[in-house]
């Protein structure tokens, strides 16, 4: 294990950090847990108790619970579903589940049974078939959202769109997202948006209790979603919540924010990434050009050096040839005292010389014109 060297912190600091983490965790906010009640104590109208299953337990508090009649449900051995959030107490680093609602397990069991029955029915009808799911297009420029215009959800979706792709057009169909009229309103919304030729439709709602989300477990809504020609993304509640529409939709997003990210291509990031890459490639090109220029300069120097060497060599060669030529220069020979004999302007050949011929004798100082009196051949 890597050792971390950090200064020691007081216990209180650790506890306040833990508290901050737990209170900031959205997944722990307003959740439902079920188990068996034990260890019940009453004090000042508050009910303190624990909830357990076969493997674990958690302390729970119902502030002023007795005043709301919760003491009739929070009874030793009772199986209940609690709605609320865990709270962290800094003093002794304890966690207690703060209760906002208590239901007998059997009651919601019925709703869950209905959910399972509907799920089975729709599954048999082929509403969940993978091969019937429409693909979500890669390039999305116009989307529809069915949700409440006043909720945090639509704001989250718009914020994400502004951050990632401000070019994206959004058509919001305002609908209630809980209560008796919600299934019909949501269905109307999907049907209406489906006719607008959008790239994708998101059906969205923030987190809530199972009861709040139950409007998405509606058979008519499931049918409308199944029959729509536009790809539909369901984004209902938190990641841990599942409703019927999640199974029928072409894609289930864990949260509305996740759905917004799925449909908004991050063009800002894409553009800044490409701009960086472009600048780098241009810089690289310039460097490469500089290097080439340097290479050319080197080559030029080498060439000049080679040429200079060549010229020097040639000069020496010419000098040597000149010296050689000088040896055979006739005027040099004449200066040494030799003469040249010409007959009729050409070097005279011994065999051609006859008595009476006129010959020119060339000496260094001048020419002597002679007449041949006698010709004697050398004895061999």
């Amino acid at each position, binding site marked *: 294990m890597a050792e971390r060297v950090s200064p020691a912190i007081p216990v209180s600091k650790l506890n306040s950090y833990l508290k901050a983490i737990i209170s900031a965790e959205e997944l722990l906010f307003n959740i439902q847990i079920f188990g068996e009640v034990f260890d019940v104590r009453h004090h000042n109208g508050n009910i303190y108790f624990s909830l357990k299953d076969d493997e674990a337990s958690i302390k729970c508090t119902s502030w002023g619970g007795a005043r709301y009649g919760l003491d009739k449900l929070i009874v030793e051995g009772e199986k209940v579903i609690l709605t609320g959030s865990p709270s962290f107490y800094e003093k002794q680093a304890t966690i207690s589940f703060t209760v906002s609602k208590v239901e007998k397990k059997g009651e919601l069991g019925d709703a869950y049974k209905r959910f399972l029955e509907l799920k089975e029915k729709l599954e048999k009808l082929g509403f969940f078939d993978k091969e019937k799911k429409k693909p979500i297009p890669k390039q999305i*420029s116009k989307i529809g959202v069915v949700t409440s215009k006043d909720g945090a959800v639509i704001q989250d979706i718009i914020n994400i769109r502004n951050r990632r792709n401000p070019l994206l057009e959004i*058509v919001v169909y*305002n609908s209630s997202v809980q209560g008796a009229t919600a299934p019909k309103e949501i269905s109307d919304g999907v049907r209406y948006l489906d006719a607008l030729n959008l790239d994708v439709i998101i059906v969205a709602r923030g987190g809530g209790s199972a009861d709040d989300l139950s409007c998405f477990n509606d058979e008519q809504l499931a049918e409308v979603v199944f029959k729509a020609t536009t790809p539909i993304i369901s984004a209902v509640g938190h990641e841990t919540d599942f409703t019927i529409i999640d199974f029928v939709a072409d894609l289930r997003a864990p949260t509305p924010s996740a759905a917004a990210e799925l449909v908004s291509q991050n063009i800002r990031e894409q553009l800044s990434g490409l701009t960086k890459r472009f600048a780098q490639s241009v810089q690289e090109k310039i460097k490469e050009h500089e290097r080439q220029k340097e290479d050319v300069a080197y080559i030029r120097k080498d060439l000049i050096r080679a040429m200079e060497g060549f010229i020097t060599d040639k000069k020496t060669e010419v000098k040597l040839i000149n010296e050689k030529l000088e040896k055979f220069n006739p005027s040099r020979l004449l200066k040494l005292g030799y003469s040249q004999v010409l007959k009729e302007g050409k070097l005279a050949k011994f065999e051609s010389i006859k008595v009476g011929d006129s010959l020119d004798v060339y000496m260094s100082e001048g020419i002597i014109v002679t007449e041949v009196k006698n010709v004697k051949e050398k004895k061999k």
Partner: protein
Amino acid sequence: MTFNKQIEKLEGIIEKLEAGDLEIDKALKLYEEGAEIINSLNTNIKENEGKIKLLTKTLNGIKEENFNE
């Protein structure tokens, strides 16, 4: 040209620049072209924000208005 088409074109230019076996005058031409595309994309993001419409069902049918963020 759509945003994605321009992005594709820019990617093509960068790939050519990165390839390396390019003469300097051709590279300069690509640089000019790329810089122009980047400018136009930035302007596009700034100036062509997509509309957000709000539809509400009323007794007289669907009412359409701009969504107030």
